[in-house]
């Protein structure tokens, strides 16, 4: 048995304030082996990934343990020494390629920088090699692709370029940090295939970090489950998926499976339409984002708008709330027509339609306390007395399942899930008839997201709310949506009761979407790629 290429012994990482981010992490990575690190945000998986490169994020320090790459303990090295390892022996693929490519330089420069700097290839060789890779990875016109700037290419292409960059200096180890999380499902699958083939073809050992069990299942030989910076359990992929030992792991697996099964939901009473948007067409500048889209939402109903980035689903939400006035089409809400312009809408209209954002932490003013955030709509719409507002706020906190003493905290001190609950409470405070949820859970961890969805459903049952849910995640749709509308580049491709949408005969695009959702089977990815004749080449 050959020696481990990467060893981490008793690693401990703390931030300057002294909180422990990772404690006593041990990893042994054999050459060509893929280890999946899985866990919720804050589990410390990225921290470990970076620590493997001898790097700690701003404000953090490696306080204990050893990181050994190919027999060399890199804490013992000087800064320069460590720099020589990075990229050359161990490379990194970041979650958001868009953010991790430097906007000021063209892609080719950034890909060639590393091999040239480490003296692995000359500039000319590097360029030739890069073009070759562009071709194999089927990037559009590979000869000129490198000359483009990051903002000029799509997220999927950028993510592939990032992968190329990572292996450009022929490293032994690559750290993949959520490489597909930011991508649409259909793109994600392509990138997954690519990564898998790279790892195989170049005999790379990899740390694959993700929060999605199904994704890691496709790639990893072994999986390490982390929580709160501590190891939960580590075992071969098969064992983790089929015979998890720890309770937490069990939850993860079960929950992931539950999202795969479809739960039929039907309205108790008949469909009483409260929102009717018909033949909506909308533009950004002179670019048409919505083309003759019609949807209806009934009382107590959840309607899902499904589509990938650029499908216009968010634009639809903006039209509904009045941020993007439609160029044609009409909206009727609770019997009367709704003005397209935000300014022309009455305060009552504003109150009755509320919006919940994808990113709870940017949707909450960091300088306000929870009480102020939730209390404001109450005092604004129902001008109540101070005590009344506070009472109602506490009531709402209870409703969204937060302890009463949060009322005086700053939202910044809370976790993502808690923040999203506050956003919901803020929406409820206005006592709306319709809540538009724009990707309400996509920024949250699996289990947390699950709870949020449960909460939304409970509220719907108690208050008879209607939801318009904008999402790319078919799992969510399956679970909560009465009706579903599938959007593709601003047009409706399928619409109707969710049950019908998910039953054959499929619209080809819907089918593609459905297939792309990772399933919790090791073999899933290979099957798909096999099924898709002429899909991305995997050799």
């Amino acid at each position, binding site marked *: 048995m050959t020696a481990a290429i990467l060893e981490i012994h008793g690693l401990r990482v703390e931030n300057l304030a002294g909180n422990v981010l990772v404690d006593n992490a041990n990893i042994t990575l054999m050459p060509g082996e893929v280890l999946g690190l899985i866990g919720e945000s804050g589990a410390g998986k990225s921290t470990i990934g970076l620590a493997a490169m001898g*790097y700690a994020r701003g404000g953090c320090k490696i306080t204990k343990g050893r990181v050994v790459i190919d027999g060399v303990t890199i804490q013992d090295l000087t800064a320069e020494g460590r720099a020589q390892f990075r990229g050359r022996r161990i490379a990194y693929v970041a979650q958001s390629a868009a953010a*991790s490519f*430097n906007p000021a330089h063209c892609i080719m420069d950034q890909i060639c920088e590393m091999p040239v700097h480490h003296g692995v290839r000359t500039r000319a060789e590097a360029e030739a090699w890069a073009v070759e890779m562009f071709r194999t990875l089927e990037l559009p016109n590979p000869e000129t692709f490198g000359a483009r700037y990051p903002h000029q290419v799509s997220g999927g292409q950028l993510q592939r370029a990032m992968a190329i960059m990572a292996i450009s200096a022929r490293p032994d180890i690559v750290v993949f940090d959520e490489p597909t999380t930011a991508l649409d499902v259909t793109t994600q699958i392509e990138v997954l295939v690519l990564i898998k083939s790279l790892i195989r073809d170049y005999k790379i050992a990899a740390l694959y970090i993700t929060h999605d069990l199904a994704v890691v299942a496709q790639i990893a030989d072994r999986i390490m489950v982390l929580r709160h910076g501590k190891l939960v359990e580590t075992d071969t992929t098969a064992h983790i998926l089929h015979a998890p030992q720890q309770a937490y792991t069990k939850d993860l697996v079960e929950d992931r499976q539950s999202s795969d099964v479809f739960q039929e939901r039907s309205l108790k009473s008949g469909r009483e339409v409260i929102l009717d948007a018909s033949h909506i067409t909308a533009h950004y500048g002179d670019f048409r984002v919505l083309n003759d889209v019609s949807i209806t939402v009934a009382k107590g109903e959840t309607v899902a708008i499904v589509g990938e980035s650029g499908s216009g689903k968010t634009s639809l939400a903006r039209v509904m709330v009045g941020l993007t006035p439609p160029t044609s089409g009409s909206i009727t809400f609770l019997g009367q027509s709704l003005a397209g312009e935000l300014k022309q809408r009455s305060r009552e209209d504003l109150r009755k339609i509320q919006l919940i954002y994808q990113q709870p932490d940017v949707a909450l003013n960091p300088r306000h306390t929870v009480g102020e955030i939730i209390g404001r709509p109450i005092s604004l719409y129902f001008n109540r007395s101070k005590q009344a507002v506070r009472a109602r706020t506490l009531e709402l906190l209870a409703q969204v399942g937060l302890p009463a003493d949060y009322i005086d905290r700053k939202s910044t001190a809370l976790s993502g899930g808690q923040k999203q609950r506050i956003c919901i409470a803020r929406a409820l405070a206005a006592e709306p008839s319709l809540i538009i949820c724009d990707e309400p859970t996509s920024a949250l961890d699996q289990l947390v997201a699950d709870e949020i969805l449960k909460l939304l459903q409970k509220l719907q049952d108690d208050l008879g709310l209607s939801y318009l849910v904008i999402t790319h995640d078919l799992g969510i749709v399956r679970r909560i949506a009465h009706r579903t509308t599938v959007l593709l580049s601003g047009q409706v491709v399928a619409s109707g009761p969710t049950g019908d949408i998910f039953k054959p005969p499929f619209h080809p695009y819907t089918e593609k979407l459905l297939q792309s959702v990772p399933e919790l089977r090791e073999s899933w990815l290979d099957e798909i790629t096999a099924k898709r004749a002429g899909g991305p080449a995997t050799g």
Partner: protein
Amino acid sequence: MLRLIITRVFLGCLTLFAVTLLIFVATEILPGDVASAVLGQGATPDTLAAFRIELGLDRPAYVRYLEWLTNAMQGDLGVAMTNKRDVIETLTPRLSNTLFLAGYAAAIAVPLAIILGVVSAINEGKWIDRAANVLTLGAISVPEFFIAYILILVFATNLGWFPSLSTVYADMGFWEKIYVVALPAITLTMLVMAHMLRMTRASVLAIMSQPYIEMAFLKGLPRRRVILRHALPNAAAPIISVVALNLAYLIVGVVVIEVVFVYPGVGQYMVDGVSKRDLPVIQACALVFGGAFVLLNTVADVLAILVNPRLRHPR
């Protein structure tokens, strides 16, 4: 992008026009006029009256302004009321002097400030960073003339390396000028350094929290290269605007330096003009200063666009 430039230039001209109008009104509001200012103690009521008529000050204000404006349009800035000299004739050499000094100082200050700014960003919190910080702050916390005097004392009176009189004449050679104007240039450098240095440092450090910087480190690049190649290009925009601001100061705000070093620039001309209420002079100088300001701002805006790849390479 061209459209943007055009609109900026147009707005610039508009601003200029407004400046002249405002200045005119201002000088109208100000007590005293060129007559009483010139004659000073020599003023007696009837000499004043005579002088006013001679200067046409008896005519209504708007007439005089429109007259001035129309002439200015044709590039004729009129003659000074005080000494009857053609304003342009007097202004041109002084303006070229001002620009020379400003350019000289900028040529030292801008690169130095940016380099030091980057260096102290590279060594954030290290002694060199703190030293640069303290020194520049010290420099801006004393009046400009004070720095000037100290330089004169040390380099002119004691060491005798440079002349304390920086008066330049048309017949001087370039290098002679460079030598003669050294002290004022150094003084100005010290004055404008601080602001630019701090801004460079700040914006570079701000960029340092970007993911692509982390990525650069993870590519195994040394800190120096990361900052120079990955951080600096993205920090350019704010640096450019602050540089522009300081260049404007170098052109507009150097009266005191001119006085101390006896440097024949526009600033002194304007001050004399103002104290004598010599309208054509004031207006001409205002035109120059306003022009410089507007021009620099516009250039800065355009550059800021040029350094932004998103705008340089549209999808």
